[in-house]
């Protein structure tokens, strides 16, 4: 049974990689020929399959769907980046909405930790969304590529701390009661947690919100290091609270994209359903697939997609 799951995981990763490589080779000609040579349903169908594979890989790689979706679909599909970012936000939002209730009920995500940070980040996400829609596509594409490559570096370098040392909670987090207890199933223990450096965290969430809105990425890749390494929340609380926070932050940006006409159902809905179904499969494969192999695949995919976005933005690889 477990070898079957391992084979399935390897097949999913291989298929995702091959799909990406295939798109990379075919894209320049295909994008130009979209309207004339392919039926209208072909790209949404391919999008659904790729989103499904991305959903699997995202869960296995421990990244949000949006961070893979936007650079890959933006780089290798014929859709304009405006619509891809709109869909990316909805993908990240739907994933967060689906995960949020369970994380909140179990006490792994903390509403009191999320609310002050989310209000700052969601206001910033509106600014980011407006900037993204106002700037020329090439500028956004270039900045997106640079950001994705930055995320790759972050994935290489950033350490994670299961239970960071917080000698004393700061005054602000104490006043806001940004603390709690969660039950760590792995160790079978209750863990008391508190946070510090709250003001610095709030400032950083302005930048995170702007990037989430501008690129439609979701921002778990940035939320988690700030919550965990800077503010000192336990890793599981950071990951869970980050995922829940996306449901708030991405909502504000999603409204801007929706009202600006940058959400197309034909792109958004197949992506959303594909990623959600893929995530369900990914969760089942999670315990069976080698974490290091998945991590390398995700980094390789991000490297390719980030480079593609950067070079496309700079007009070098059109």
């Amino acid at each position, binding site marked *: 049974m477990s070898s079957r799951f391992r084979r399935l995981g390897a097949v999913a990763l291989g298929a995702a990689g091959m799909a990406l490589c295939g798109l990379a080779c075919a894209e320049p000609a295909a994008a130009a020929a979209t*309207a004339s040579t392919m039926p209208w349903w072909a790209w949404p169908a391919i999008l659904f399959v790729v989103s499904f594979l991305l959903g699997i890989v995202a869960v296995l790689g421990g990244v949000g769907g949006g961070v893979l979706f936007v650079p890959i679909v933006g780089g290798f599909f014929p859709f304009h980046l405006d619509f891809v970012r709109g869909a990316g936000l909805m993908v990240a939002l739907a994933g967060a909405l689906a995960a949020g209730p369970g994380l909140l009920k179990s006490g792994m995500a903390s509403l009191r930790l999320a609310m002050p940070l989310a209000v700052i980040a969601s206001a910033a996400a509106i600014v980011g969304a407006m900037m993204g829609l106002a700037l020329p596509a090439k500028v956004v594409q270039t900045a997106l590529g640079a950001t994705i490559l930055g995320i790759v570096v972050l994935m290489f370098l950033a350490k994670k701390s299961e239970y960071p040392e917080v000698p004393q909670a700061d005054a602000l987090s104490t006043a806001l009661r940004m603390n709690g207890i969660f039950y760590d199933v792995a160790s079978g223990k209750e863990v008391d947690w508190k946070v510090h450096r709250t003001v610095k965290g709030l400032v950083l969430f302005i930048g995170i919100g702007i990037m989430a809105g501008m690129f439609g990425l979701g921002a778990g890749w940035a939320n988690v290091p700030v919550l965990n390494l800077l503010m000192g929340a336990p890793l599981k609380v950071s990951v869970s609270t980050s995922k829940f926070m996306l449901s708030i932050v991405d909502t504000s940006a999603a409204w801007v994209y929706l009202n600006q006409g940058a959400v197309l159902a034909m792109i958004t*809905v197949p992506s959303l359903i594909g990623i959600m179904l893929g995530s369900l499969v990914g969760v089942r494969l999670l315990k069976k697939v080698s974490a290091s192999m998945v991590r390398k695949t995700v980094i390789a995919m991000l490297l390719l997609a980030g480079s593609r976005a950067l070079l496309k933005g700079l007009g070098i690889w059109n």
Partner: protein
Amino acid sequence: MADMPDNGKQYASEEQLVYAHWLDWGMKIGFVILVVTFLGYLFGVTEPHVSHERLAELWSHPVRDYLKATDTHTGWTWLSLIGQGDYMNFIGIAFLSAVTAVCYLRILPIFIAAKDKVFTAIAILEVLVLVLAASGILVSGH
């Protein structure tokens, strides 16, 4: 109950549980609406504002050009097109985008009853931010 830790104790606060409950139902209802309206659009049950073939010609253009070519306007004007297949999908998308604000409004009385002034203010502020984002008055474009 399935989401409770396996030691049977409850670690989430009252407002967190209420928020989770509403979020759960909002997400499920929104997702069902989204899938149903999309299937209607995909299989041509409802006539779209922009035909599938025309959409495939336009989706590689910036949103500004798309709106101009399809004679569509920004803001809440999509409501006037809600009877058409493509814009009918916006019911589910807008529903999912509105769930968070509804959850905040639902837990607001809990903060007020607990005389938690700071979180009452934060909850109100968040709703105002989301309403501003949803208002359609924030216009940008390239």
